[in-house]
């Protein structure tokens, strides 16, 4: 452990078993943890069947555990956000990123006003509805998300373990199915859309284990009202880390933890460096799925050296069941890190 890691780990709280969740508090900010994100990904379509995928993500990264707030510009946390739209029919993929300090209210997370925002990208998160608004140069979205199932907490004992050491873990909450309705405006045309969204919220204070290169993460919403969350932590030697895991959510919203031994990940076709097609087998619950992207190019190519490029795209699943979802692949570009250091 480097000195810097030691210092930061010594002052931020780690994600440890036994954490007591409390809502709606835990849907919002946890400044005592170093890193936190709110991730919305969804598959939508118009009445006529024109399909879209979207991603709206808010990141918070503490630069240091505490600072003296001398000015409104004093910055403890940096806020990043990503916005992406997959236009399947038009074979187009748009994405944008932004970095802001809280400043006078440029970005932030606020329990009182139930908001998470970065400039004019925002989420209004109430107990029965999440409203997403985001404007970009090429498109904008205005979506109302209603939880079809309550949120779930991944991992045993309230922690999603990502490495061998205590604290190499996160607190990981998901809304596995949010019924979504709203508008996507693209090139001056407003599309009325509906579909499903997956939402992840994670907070933690440790970086990825030194042996890991990145991860491949799946959110799958099957047509039979069940969902799967799977992640494969990829070691530098190309093997799956034993801490790779998943969660199965049944129709009633009950979860089953899946260990690496339960899941078989088989990469199929490569697009650039990314395996965009997969075979997934979970024999214990009788699932065998073929995963294909709605569009190959769903790479969020970073313009800056400060942030990594990654692939995050809308997926189609067929096999034992059919469904839709999202795949995220990180660490193919460079070792993944979330914040400039």
């Amino acid at each position, binding site marked *: 452990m480097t000195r810097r890691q030691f210092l930061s780990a010594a002052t931020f709280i780690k994600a440890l078993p036994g954490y007591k969740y409390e809502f709606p508090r835990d849907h919002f900010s946890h400044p005592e943890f170093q890193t936190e994100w709110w991730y919305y990904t969804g598959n939508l379509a118009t009445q006529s069947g024109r399909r879209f995928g979207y991603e709206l993500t808010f990141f918070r990264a503490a630069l*240091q555990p505490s600072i003296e707030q001398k000015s409104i510009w004093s910055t403890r946390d*940096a806020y990043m956000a990503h916005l992406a739209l997959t236009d399947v029919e038009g074979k187009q993929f748009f994405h944008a990123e932004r970095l802001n300090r809280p*400043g006078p*209210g440029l970005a932030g997370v606020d329990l009182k006003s139930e908001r998470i925002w970065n400039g*004019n990208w925002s989420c209004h998160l109430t107990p029965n509805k999440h409203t997403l608004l985001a404007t970009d*140069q090429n498109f904008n979205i205005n979506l109302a998300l209603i939880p079809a199932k309550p949120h779930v907490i991944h991992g045993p004992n309230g922690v999603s373990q990502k490495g061998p050491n205590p604290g190499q873990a996160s607190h990981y909450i998901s809304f596995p199915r949010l019924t979504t309705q709203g508008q996507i405006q693209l090139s001056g045309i407003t599309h009325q859309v509906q579909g499903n969204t997956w939402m992840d919220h994670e907070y933690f204070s440790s970086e990825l284990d030194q042996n890991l290169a990145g991860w491949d993460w799946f959110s799958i919403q099957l047509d039979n009202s069940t969902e799967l969350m799977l992640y494969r932590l990829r070691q530098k030697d190309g093997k799956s880390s034993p801490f790779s895991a998943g969660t199965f959510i049944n129709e009633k919203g009950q979860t089953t933890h899946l260990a690496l031994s339960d899941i078989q990940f088989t990469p199929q076709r490569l697009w650039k460096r990314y395996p965009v097609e997969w075979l997934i087998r979970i024999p214990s619950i009788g699932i065998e799925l073929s995963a294909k992207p709605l569009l190959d190019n769903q790479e969020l190519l970073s*313009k*800056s050296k400060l*942030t990594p490029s990654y692939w995050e795209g809308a997926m189609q699943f067929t096999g034992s069941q059919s469904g839709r979802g999202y795949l995220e692949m990180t660490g193919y570009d460079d070792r993944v890190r979330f914040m400039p250091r």
Partner: protein
Amino acid sequence: MTWLFFRLILRPLWADKARTTTTLLSIALGVAVIFAMDLAGEAAAGSFKSSMETVSGQDDIEILATGGLPVDLLAQLSQLPYPLKFSPRIEDYALLANKRTVPLIGVDIFANALELESSGEPTQPVKPTERGVFTTASVGRKGETIWLQINDQPLSYKILGIIDSGQVSGDLVLMDVEDAEAVTNRRNRVDRILVSLPAAEKVNVDTWVDTLAKHVPAGASVRPIGARKEENRKMLAAFRWNLRVLSYIALMVGAFLIYNTISVSVVRRRAEIGIVRAVGATRQLMTFAFLAEALFFGVAGGGLGLVIGRILAEGAVKLVGLTVQALYVSSTAAPVEFDLAAAALSLGSGIAVSLLAALAPALEAGQIPPTEAMARGRIDTQLQQATPRHLVYAGVLLAIGAALCQLPPIVGKPFGGYLATLALIAAASLSSASLIQFGARHIASWGGVQSLLAGRSLAGALRRSSVLVAALATAIAMMTSVGIMVGSFRETMLTWIDRQIRADFYLRPAGDAAMDRHPTIAEEVATKIEALPGVVAVDRFRAYSIRYNGLPVTLAAGDVRAQMRYGRTSLKSGDMQDAIKSMLAGEAVIISEPFSEKHRVKVGDPITIPLGTGKPTFRIAGIFLDYSSENGYIILDHSIIKRYLPADEPSNLAIYTKPDVDRAALRTQIERSYAPRRIVVFENNSLRNEAIRIFDQTFAVTYALEAVAIFVAVMGVAGAMLALIIDRRREIGLIRFLGAAKQQVRGIILFEAAFIGLFSQILGVLSGSLLSLVLIFVINKQSFGWTIEFHAPVLALLSALAFVFVATVIAGLYPAKIATTLNPIEVLHEE
């Protein structure tokens, strides 16, 4: 025709090199000055770049307000559902260790981090723990620690990175908005919010300006980013216009010399013209031939002038830049560029003036009858008598000039005044012949035989001598009038300063001053000084550059109570007691005279001023005299501005002391109270000197222009005298033959030069004094709005005149030498 041009025009020009050269040079200098001033004016003021626009960003719209915008506005704007990028900017100036002032810009490093990172070498901007700056390459090297003075504080910073010179024009220091907020004391405020439109929307700037205007408070203004440039262009228009007019003086003097040269050509070649006419050349051909001579001077001289002008422009841009900085705005002079339009205009002016000046003599050449070929010896018979008709014409022109002075300005420009100037000069020129005749009869007779002969010969060659006198008189008139105007202005300003400056000490942050830069002094300094024994009051003065009707104006807040008790601001109009009372009540403001002239407002009028986020309306309670700003002042009481801009610190302090205080000791205490801040203390009299220094710096360009006009005129006199001598070889030979000594001949020539000098001075000073009235009361008043009291700077003028007189006599030395070397026998043999 070509042959004719060559034989009749070019060959004599070549034979008479001295006169040809001086005429050419005078045109060249005239054109050069016009061209140089135009180029320099454009570089220093026209292609004006506010020093704050050094960062050539992608921004399209700016939002700004007096005293800055609240940061909350940025937060609100950033959440509007528009695809726009809003960037906060704190803007100030930093003084470098080498005394250079560069813009200091505070930006949100975070919001720019992704863009900054994507271009150029990897820097590490997101490091809030490290205090550092980014600079241009000439300010320092990466990793180096530099010293900066910001407002009154000396600070040191580490250079974290070097800004790519391709992205900026001119030097600057850039830091994170958090640091900038702290050092500039802009608590929760930014100076501007810049808005960047997406590429597809760049054409709709005006629509977006209107959209955004609905989201900003009343006091804020939203406008396209180029607006500041337009505003400055507008602000500097009157200044540049007058500079341009002034630059035409040298060419006008040149016009007389052209006229002289062509008339001499015509007179001396009467015989040749007669012969050419006798063998069949038409009148028109003669006229054209001499116009062609003028054209030659215009083209050749003008071409040469462009070359000289381009070189002069480099020096002129510094002078003009100083004036612009002192009077108007901090600007970075753009590099001087060869401007084709300006070149064409200057060259065109040179040619047009040459042709116009040559028109009369060229027409006369056409009138010469063929019989003239036979009439040898009838040289220069015209205008042997100055006719009273010319004096009548002069009188009529004077009357017209006086009437023109009554005209109001047309589109803000004093055209009546300019025309009156021309009328005055024409009137003076028309009187020159009468003056010479009068002088030859009544003055020359006092100086003995040589003087008498000199006077006679001038009066006998009236058509040439009168033009010479007119040319020199014009230059002297210009010198006198501009001298009187500047002197009057200086004197008026000094009287005003003496009346105005009542405090014992004045404090302002160190660094060079500019009209639109208002660095501040920490409030704690003022408080500490207030507590010093011997100090009775500290008047805090705070200035802001604001815009009123699209023009820059200085808005200032002072302590009306302290002013009332200790100072003595007098009002030009309005009631002092009422002004004080209503200013304290927050109902009224007072404005400076140039402001009232420029914006056409008077006492009692309402005035709405953007102040912070508000836009309150006040009543104008008084107009005060002011000579420090052409843009004008609006002054309110300190307590009122605090309502809108609460956290502001003063930009100047005026300290009033007890009469019996030990000034030296108090000064030391004051200096101790602000250490280690960088503040300069002026005592009453040193502030006066500082004002004079700035004033003289402002008028440096005027002095330079005058010097060129005088130089052209004196040179013209030398050339013309030489021509005169050569024409009078026979006469001189005769005098020598009759027994005159060389010294006596030299005496005659020098007397002639002296008389030309003397008559020019009489005419020049007379018309110059009249001209100065036009400059002071018509042109200045209409273009700048200043009330200047007439004050002739007698001593300075006398010494300048003496200098010109001596120069004229010296100009006679060479012709005199030529005259004495003529061999009388040979000269007479020519007959």
